[in-house]
């Protein structure tokens, strides 16, 4: 079911009409786009903002700072004065951030062709611009919905003609359209990443992908990996980047056509391997079809195929996976091994903006889940298995310490999500201060490990009845009666508030079928997409786990 698009306002000192057209031409555009009047940056940020709107605020340093403007015309630069002007600009941005869903702020640039003499890097405009940019970065670093965008990436991609004097003097557009295409790609990719469409799993081939050479033919001792060898060093760098991604919560897996014992020996014994067995959530090393293996992993890990990326040096394997699993992202991969690391880094598909403790532990969490599933085989009935886990669910009102994770969970979770409503941190902070619209977080742990903060319940207790505004659960704990526990809490909260009924209105999306299925089985009375519980009765608390509220059993 389609959902209404939110709004993106383009705010700039220069003409962004071409960018607006390029964005509107994109079929995957998540926004309605409008352009603020040229050069009206402050007024646009202070003016009317449609609900849920975001803004691109793409300014020229010459117009943010009179000191910088003088500096490019060969006047001495007063750094302190320029930084004070940046402070004023930052104040405006920070004030506006509370009113917009997101502010995208491209870094400042000045054409590199400009020559200011030998002192240009020590006292000239480039030095000043670097200080201004860094100062702005520091000022907005703690504002979670201000996203700095990397302009140099766009001008680099556009090449030599990125800056266009012709376009500037004719239309007040400093860049050619190639820059705007690159900007559009990054804006849309950023939005997709922050709304649950980021890559969560990278499936990797081994031979000539993770290391150089064919381990079955060459032996692990002769693989090109590290050492005084250009390709060997590049494979190590590639593995380091992958491990960095893993530590930020991106899972890694192997799908390789190889003899498993031989490949694993290389992984265990090669001294230059950065990645070891424990770094992977799944390994399929045999001679079977990689597409089928990836489909298995998607099922096992309970993630969407659109969250998976497949990297293989072999174009035949890439083509096969693209055909078999069209939703899986299969980037073109360079034949030149020295470009592997750069290619991986250039893909705008990872959500790395704010890592949480859960991100760092994600691989371990899925490995714990695999052990949990193994234990399940020994139990004939579901409740017996759940009791054997010794589960504890700890609930707490939304608080500062949990804010980043709660915000992330709201914005990443698609399958078990009642409304798929995305909240800004600012909006969540407003709810923290509003006792009529409480939000609780739920942490789940058992004898196998700690799944962390994996559930959110939001309610509106201000009306005649109680309304469940948000019911969000990470797929990693679905089906363990945490969802029933959350409904139990919702009904108890409604009873305490003297409400006669609790209502949950499901907003269907193409992905939240699991949430609908649960609500339909929950015992709540269903009328279309609306589910109601009469608070004369308690909603039963599952006996297979212990619910703890504020340190004591609830």
């Amino acid at each position, binding site marked *: 079911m389609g959902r209404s698009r939110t709004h993106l306002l383009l705010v700039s000192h220069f003409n962004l009409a*071409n960018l607006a057209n390029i964005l509107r031409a994109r079929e995957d555009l998540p926004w309605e786009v409008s352009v603020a009047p040229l050069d009206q940056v402050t007024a646009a940020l202070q003016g009317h903002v449609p609900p849920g709107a975001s803004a691109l605020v793409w300014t020229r340093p010459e117009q943010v700072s009179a000191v910088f403007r003088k500096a490019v015309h060969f006047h001495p630069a007063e750094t302190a004065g320029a930084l004070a002007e940046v402070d004023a600009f930052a104040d405006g941005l920070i004030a506006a951030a509370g009113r917009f869903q997101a502010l995208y702020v491209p870094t400042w640039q000045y054409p590199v062709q400009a020559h200011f003499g030998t002192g240009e890097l020590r006292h000239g405009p480039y030095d000043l611009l670097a200080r201004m940019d860094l100062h702005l970065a520091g000022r907005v670093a703690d504002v979670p919905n201000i996203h700095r965008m990397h302009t140099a990436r766009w001008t680099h991609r556009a090449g030599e003609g990125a800056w266009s004097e012709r376009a500037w003097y*004719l239309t007040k557009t400093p860049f050619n359209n190639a820059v705007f295409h690159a900007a559009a790609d990054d804006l849309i990719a950023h939005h997709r990443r922050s709304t649950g469409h980021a890559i969560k799993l990278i499936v990797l081939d081994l031979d000539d992908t993770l290391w150089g050479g064919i381990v079955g033919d060459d032996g692990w001792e002769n693989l090109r990996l590290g050492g005084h060898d250009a390709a060997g060093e590049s494979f190590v760098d590639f593995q380091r980047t992958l491990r960095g991604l893993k530590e930020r919560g991106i899972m890694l897996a192997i799908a390789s056509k190889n003899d498993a014992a031989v490949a694993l020996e290389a992984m265990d014994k090669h001294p230059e391997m950065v990645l070891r067995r424990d770094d992977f959530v799944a390994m399929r090393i045999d001679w079977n079809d990689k597409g089928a293996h990836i489909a298995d992993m998607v099922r096992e890990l309970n993630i969407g195929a659109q969250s998976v990326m497949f990297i293989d040096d072999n174009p035949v394997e890439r083509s096969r996976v693209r055909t078999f699993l069209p939703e899986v992202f299969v980037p073109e991969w360079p034949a030149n091994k020295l470009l592997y690391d750069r290619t991986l880094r250039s893909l705008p598909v990872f959500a790395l903006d704010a890592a949480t403790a859960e991100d760092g532990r994600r691989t371990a969490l899925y490995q714990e889940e695999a052990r949990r599933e193994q234990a399940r085989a020994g139990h004939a009935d579901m409740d017996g298995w759940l009791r054997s886990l010794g589960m504890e669910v700890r609930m707490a009102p939304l608080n500062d310490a949990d804010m980043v994770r709660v915000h992330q969970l709201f914005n990443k979770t698609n399958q078990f999500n009642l409304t798929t409503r995305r909240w800004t941190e600012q909006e969540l902070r407003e709810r923290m201060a509003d006792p009529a619209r409480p939000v609780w977080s739920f942490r789940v742990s058992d004898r196998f490990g700690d799944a962390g903060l994996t559930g959110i319940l939001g309610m509106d207790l201000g009306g005649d009845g109680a309304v469940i505004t948000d019911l969000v659960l990470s797929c990693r704990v679905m089906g363990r009666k945490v969802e029933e526990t959350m409904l139990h809490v919702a009904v108890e909260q409604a009873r305490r508030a003297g409400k006669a009924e609790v209502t949950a209105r499901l907003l269907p999306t193409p992905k939240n079928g699991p949430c609908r299925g649960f609500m339909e089985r929950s015992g709540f009375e269903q009328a279309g997409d609306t589910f109601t519980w009469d608070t004369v009765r308690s909603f039963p608390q599952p006996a297979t786990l212990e619910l703890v509220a504020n340190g004591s059993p609830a």
Partner: protein
Amino acid sequence: MPTATPAATEELVRSVLERLNGDLPAADRFAISDDTVIMGDAGVLDSLGIANFIVGLEEEVQRAFGVELALSDQDLAGLFEQPQVTVQVFAAFVHQRASA
């Protein structure tokens, strides 16, 4: 470097228009033929489109033929006096300027 023949110039004009077209939302795109009216009454380009077209054309003429073509308002004034400037008419004008 290729010579700015009439046919090559017309091809270049069309390619610049096609690139502009590709950067427009689907609803705003226009059909391109020899008779497409670029500017003037019922022209397919608005004022920003005309400016983008001139910028793109100057860059492409320089890249393709090595000719620096700086079209001023006066240069274009004669063209604008015509009620309709088609692809063919504009290509002939550019060919004349690039060959001068």
